[in-house]
């Protein structure tokens, strides 16, 4: 049967053969990660383009419109056309910008979020680098976006951009806390930080963590939406208040990088949600007869979670900045701490000390 592991192994075999033919087998450990990163980069770029199209179609459907339908079948190539437009258009720069940070900010925004994809297991063994501290790595690396946004807001030398940057700093730092706390129960139960390990635990246990950890799942999805600056938490770029927020002064490719970064952040947080709470590459129980490969299951779950996040955006009004802080500190954090305590108590009661 076609599984992610088989594919990875056959590709690795092919590469090893190529290396031996070229006589560079010694460099395999150096070249392989580069190749897998490039493959991941290509995949994520295409996937994000699909997501942008999907978002426009979802919003069009919700708003009783048609959405893009001119370029390519079902308008699928609309995003490609947009990307070409963005890359070829003039790069308008504010005169009084802070030059170096202004250039670096979109790169950080894009790279930091993309790096998160590196540890996501699409299938058993189908992962760029299975770190044993995977979940910590993702939380740390996606936290970099706040630097990018703050830098962008500051260096643009625009009052709206600065307000957006400050808002973003406050928001991302506040929502990082419940995000991490909501993951803690899973780590307590599984005893591993590796994403692959967490999925394997769910396979062995026979249930997904969304069932015992529904509270953690809701907190995670909420804070992840806030982390990705998506509505109803999109106050850093609040269109009706701050025009474009931190990316008001960015155009062309630089804007495209922020835009891609936002979507990749959605992909990363949804992928983590799928891995932690929805059983990663495991098949849906009552559809097990379908015998689909693991990575197809993963993608189905991923797109479903992303659909939910998109539906949020087109349904809810935006919170105000102080209400956003209140919600994070007074609702999400107490609940996630309570969730940790309850989980610990229940697991101690059920399995006794040192249960693994």
């Amino acid at each position, binding site marked *: 049967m076609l599984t992610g592991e088989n594919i990875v192994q056959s590709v690795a075999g092919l590469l090893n053969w190529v290396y031996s033919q070229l006589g560079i087998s010694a460099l395999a450990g150096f070249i392989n990660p580069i190749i897998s990163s490039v493959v991941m980069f290509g995949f994520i770029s295409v996937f994000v383009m699909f997501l942008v199209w999907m978002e426009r179609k979802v919003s069009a459907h919700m708003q009783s419109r048609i959405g893009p339908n001119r370029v390519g079948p079902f308008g699928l190539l609309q995003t490609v056309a947009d990307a070409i437009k963005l890359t070829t258009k003039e790069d308008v720069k504010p005169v009084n910008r802070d030059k170096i940070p202004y250039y670096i900010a979109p790169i950080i925004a894009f790279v930091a979020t993309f790096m998160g994809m590196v540890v996501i297991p699409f299938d058993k063994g189908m992962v760029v680098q299975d770190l044993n501290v995977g979940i910590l790595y993702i939380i740390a690396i996606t936290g970099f976006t706040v630097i990018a946004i703050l830098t962008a807001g500051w260096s643009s030398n625009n009052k709206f951009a600065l307000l957006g940057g400050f808002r973003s700093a406050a928001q991302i730092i506040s929502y990082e806390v419940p995000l991490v706390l909501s993951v803690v129960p899973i780590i307590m139960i599984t005893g591993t930080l590796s994403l692959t390990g967490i999925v394997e635990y769910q396979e062995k246990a026979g249930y997904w963590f969304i069932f015992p950890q529904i509270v953690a799942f809701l907190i995670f999805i909420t804070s992840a939406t806030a982390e990705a600056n998506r509505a109803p938490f999109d106050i850093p770029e609040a269109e009706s208040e701050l*025009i474009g927020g931190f990316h008001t002064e960015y155009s062309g490719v630089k804007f495209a990088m922020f835009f891609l970064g936002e979507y990749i952040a959605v992909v990363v947080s949804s992928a983590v949600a799928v891995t932690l709470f929805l059983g990663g590459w495991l098949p849906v129980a009552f559809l097990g007869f379908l015998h689909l490969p693991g990575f197809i299951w993963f993608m189905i779950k991923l797109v479903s979670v992303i659909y939910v996040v998109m539906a949020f955006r087109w349904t809810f009004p935006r919170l105000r900045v102080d209400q956003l802080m209140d919600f994070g500190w007074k609702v999400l954090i107490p609940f996630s701490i309570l969730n940790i305590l309850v989980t610990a108590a229940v697991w101690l009661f059920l399995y006794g000390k040192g249960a693994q």
Partner: protein
Amino acid sequence: MTDLLLSQVKVGGESQFGTDEYVVNLGPQHPATHGVLRLIVKLDGETVKETMPVLGYLHRSIEKICENRTYPQCITYTDRIDYVSAMSVNLAFALATEKLMNIEAPARAQWLRMIFVELQRLASHLLWMGAFAGDIGALTPFLYGLRERERILDLFEMTCGQRLTYNYIRIGGVMIDILPEFVPKCRAFLDYFEPKVDEYEDLLTYNPIFLERTKGVGIIAPEVGINAGVCGPSLRGSGIACDVRKQQPYLYYDQMKFNECIETAGDCWSRYKVRMNEMRESVSIIRQCLERLEPGSFEAKMPPVLKAPVGSEIYSRIESSRGEMGVYLVGDGTAKPWKSKYRCASFSNLYVLDQLTKGWKVADIMAVLGSLDMIVPEVDR
């Protein structure tokens, strides 16, 4: 560098570093100001210290132009005063001129005027609902509002050929009679539209985030509202009965059964609720009008050149979609008004903006501005 920093520290003093107000210029081009209103906002972090509207970016001196045009020509200019609710302004001017010259429009024209003005109120409130929700961050209701507005505009287009600036309500009647299929189409629209209002309410009214953003925000105290000259739905949200249709009925509003929608809290949510309820009342008024529409002439017999008597003077007011719309005219015996002055609801409603936003956050400016239903050409004229 250290010296520079230290020099800003007062020894033992309260202020350590020189702080400055953060002055942000919202507009004239800004997504939330619905046109070219400019707001100079002084901020302390996110908190608003002062909001100062700067007017005049859409000033076209319509009042002066009208003094150099004949009375029928002025109607076209009144369209441009409030392009979202052009029928109401047409009506305001037509009624004022008719009173000035003692012209009585026939009954059919009056009924048609009522139907069209109430349809216009629906269209205007729909656009307002979408824009208000958009200001708060919900983009979807805007499309729903426009979807229904489109069908109203189709009805207008069917009758007078225009979709935005109609020039339909004329002195002494209306421009042209409705087509025979107008009445069934209008009824069909009303049947389609009535449940839609409940749908919008399902989407917004008790949405927790919407409540957070609008409940208790931008409260107009009744006495503040009256002193500042706030009118229309914005004042009715503060619990004051001020609907000109009830207080000083014009056309045949005294024969209509409808409620004056009043909420008491005076916040953004109340103003929203007043307008939503008003849509339902408008539907009921249109139904009654369609019921009583009688055949007859659609325009009065009038002299070829309309002249107001020397020294005649009139202030006539109606309830437009945004509030009280007053027209003041002075005649001097010629075919042109000696003086024309429009009293527009948006302009007087804007007075309270600074009071309502002081001490609130930046995002509340948009919520309050949206809830006042301001439109820039009415402010500047």
